[in-house]
């Protein structure tokens, strides 16, 4: 039986505020999973605490709503204990980057084979509107009436710095792009880190309006594709040249990729760390677009794969080889010097 999006929905009422970007992300995930052809029981959604972390309750899969910031650690145990599971970790900017920052960087460097979706709305929603680690400097909130004093974290550069093997960004309401990124993330073996710009219409409405509004999006969003030049703009007449020195905006005659390349626009290589770091930083400079897509991807051994190999002795050997348990234990107990009394 072919599964449909509704097969991944639970009977629980979804309790996000009406208009929240989380609804879009939930719908996108529920649309995506049936395309993979695997039964619901093979998925585990694991989350921390926050608005985003209610996500597992709404997925008709296995789900674990854990404690604040610790979802990467729980996911490590789940995936390592049973590598056959498809583990999806759901987190937010506060959960993943503030209280759970340590676990996030270690999950990324470990390269645990999971998909990690970070819903970034640049605000604490569930606790009713304090500034978050991705809030801009000077942001006025209940807990920062004179403006936030902290520099924001860029989740993409953090992930790259933590040696993530897959780093991407997409947008809550862009279903087409989200599904493309989910497919890439799911295909990737290792921690697939996906930042999702998500609008909190109650406490931080419009924070991503430049890329969410139909009118402004084309001139503010750069859709990154591997092997393609970095071109954007309503007229597709602007591009980015990446170098060790940073990024440069280039204008050219629209309509032709060759012209863009000739003008110096970079053909993006997602396996190139220099490209990834430079691209991740471009929107620090006013006038530069926000990149969306896969920033970086490399293939390397997964944590759970290495653990399983050490555990079983080899890749082929199966875990539950029948053996004489009591003889095995006797051998262990009697290792070292023993002596007989009586």
């Amino acid at each position: 039986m072919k599964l449909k999006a509704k097969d991944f929905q639970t009977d629980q009422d979804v309790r996000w505020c009406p208009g929240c970007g989380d609804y879009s992300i939930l719908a996108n995930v529920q649309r995506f999973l049936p395309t993979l052809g695997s039964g619901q029981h093979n998925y585990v959604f694991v989350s921390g605490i926050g608005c985003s972390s209610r996500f597992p309750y709404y997925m008709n899969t296995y789900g674990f709503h854990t404690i604040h910031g610790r979802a990467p650690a729980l996911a490590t145990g789940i995936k390592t204990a049973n590598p056959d599971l498809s583990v999806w970790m759901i987190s937010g900017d506060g959960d993943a980057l503030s209280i759970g920052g340590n676990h996030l960087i270690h999950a990324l460097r470990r390269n645990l084979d999971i998909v990690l979706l970070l819903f970034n709305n640049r605000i604490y929603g569930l606790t009713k509107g304090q500034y978050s680690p991705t809030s801009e400097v000077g942001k006025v909130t209940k807990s920062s009436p004179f403006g936030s004093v902290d520099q924001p974290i860029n989740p993409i550069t953090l992930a790259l710095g933590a040696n993530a093997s897959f780093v991407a960004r997409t947008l809550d309401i862009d279903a087409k792009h989200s599904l493309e990124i989910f497919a890439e993330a799911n295909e990737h073996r290792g921690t697939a880190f996906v930042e999702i710009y998500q609008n909190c219409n109650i406490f931080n409405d419009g924070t991503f309006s430049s890329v969410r509004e139909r009118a402004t999006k084309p001139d503010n969003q750069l859709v990154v594709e591997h092997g393609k030049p970095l071109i954007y703009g309503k007229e597709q007449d602007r591009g980015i040249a990446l170098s060790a020195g940073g990024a440069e905006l280039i204008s050219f005659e629209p309509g032709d990729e060759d012209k863009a390349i000739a003008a110096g626009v970079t053909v993006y290589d997602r396996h190139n760390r220099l490209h990834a770091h430079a691209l991740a930083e471009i929107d620090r400079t006013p006038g530069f677009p926000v990149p969306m897509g896969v920033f970086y991807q490399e293939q390397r051994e997964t944590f759970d794969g290495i653990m399983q190999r050490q555990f079983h002795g080899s890749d082929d050997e199966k875990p539950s080889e029948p053996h004489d348990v009591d003889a095995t234990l006797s051998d262990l107990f009697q290792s070292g010097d023993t002596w007989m009394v009586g």
Partner: protein
Amino acid sequence: MISNQELAGSGRSARTERNSVIIRFAGDSGDGIQLTGRQFTNESALAGNDIATLPNFPAEIRAPAGTLAGVSGYQIHFGSEEIFTPGEVPDVLVAFNPAALKANLSDVKMGGIIVLNEDAFTDKNLSRVGYEQNPCDDENLKQNYRVFVVPISRLTKDALANTSLTPNEVDRCKNFFALGLMLWMFDRPREATRAWIDKKFKKRPELADANKIALEAGYTYGDATEIFDLSFSVKPADLEPGLYRNINGSTALAYGIVAAAQKSKLSVFFGAYPITPASDLLHELARHKRLGVMTFQAEDEIAAVCAAIGASYAGSLGVTSSSGPGIALKGEALGLAVCTELPLVVVDTQRAGPSTGMPTKTEQSDLLLALHGRHGEAPVCVLAASSPSTAFSMAYEACRIALKYMTPVILLSDGYIANGSEPWQIPDPSSLPEIINRRIDKTNNPDGPFMPYMRDEQSLARPWAVPGTPELMHRIGGLEKQDLSGNVSYDADNHAKMTALRAEKIARIASEIPPIKIDGDDNGEILLLGWGGTEGTLREAQRRCREEGISVSRLHLHYLNPLPADLEPALRKFKHVLIPEINTGQLKSIIRDKFLIDAKGYNAVRGQPLRSSKVVEAIKSLAQPH
């Protein structure tokens, strides 16, 4: 013990037979003291003695050489009689330098033997610890003790004159010289040490040879030198028949966990973060990946417990381990394991606190933390090991209960149990209790949705439906559960019911506890009640009282939550209940609180095991009230 008279008058010709002897090796933490002590222990165990050991080392790995801060010690109590503790007053002190003498002299039995490494008693080392006179020449010292001044470093150097080793490498062999000398003095074999050296220095045969030469040189020195007019023999102890090995608490804990993995036919996932004195459990388990234990060195204590919980959720048995500071950090995650009712074993190898406290020193001060150290009403099962041997059985028991009841179990050990060693009667694996678990692969509610919180009637354990099982998809988490369905619920009556159910489930574990066994009369004047690593001390105190004609009964608890159902009536049969603890009275508070029994405490928080002599004093003061 060796009497002063014997020490004074021992002849050279024959060995004096002793029932038990206490030796302490002491030196710089880089002198190989722990290794020397462990080898002496092994040889004594193989000679058939009962033993108890107490390593005592500084937290600094290599404190400045020759300073009091850097003194490391290892005490061995061995005998032909039952040995309950590492002893309090060494009969023999082997001091590798002035700091080691200064730090340990006051403990040594008056008239006891002191062996000094003369070569380390240099002006510089003497002044560093404030000796104005060289103790090697101190007549006053020689009046009170049998002092043997041996140029250990020089003799080692002479013995190794023909090797190609560097002077530093030669000097590092001196602990084997001292070991050889002590093995001679107490008529121990040397085979196990030789074999150990060969294995340890497999890749450096020249070092293996040098250490064996030093060992032999020390032994021969004792045998041939006129200055040693004392030697002793200690006959094998009268242990219960069986196969034995020497084991320390950390290894025993690890074996208990491995045994649980094997017998339960589940994988164990062990998550830990390095911390003294708990790390040895991680080290030992990391060697046994092929025996069904997957070890994970996490980024921090919280990740260690959370990964273990995740693994339990996915169908393994999650185990985590730490000491007090780490257990404090794990508190929130333990609450999650209580709420989600997943099996989890948490080993707390206690150390002296608060805060960083004294990491290498022992204490029993986490009992209340284990019982209550979580927010909300979050009951867990709490067990305690009392010795290296019981560390094995209680680790196995912790795993068994966690799986049968779908609950976190905290197992309390301590630095003294972890590092101490004793002969272990190797159990027959087929005699270990069966381990059942709550795994299901079919729904428990054929007419409706799967019910993840529909409980087993007797144990109240919920079913364990692990991800990957078709048709049993469900969501769990830290939000309060609706009874049966496990859905999120804020209903007031439901919260009250779930709180009661979680408490009742833990209470029912009491049915697992074997009937209590009182050592001595089951009624009378004084009951000595203990838990954890003080068991040997309390047995020793009881024996001394009996020798003096004071009748004292003794009971040691291994189940702290729930308490044994037959505990209260047993306590009521005594006029006094005395609870000695290495804390300020934690079990005492619990006994008073639960039973309104006017228990008395004897408490000493010195970072050291209790002294049985002090416990005897406490017993006497109760027996003869002023």
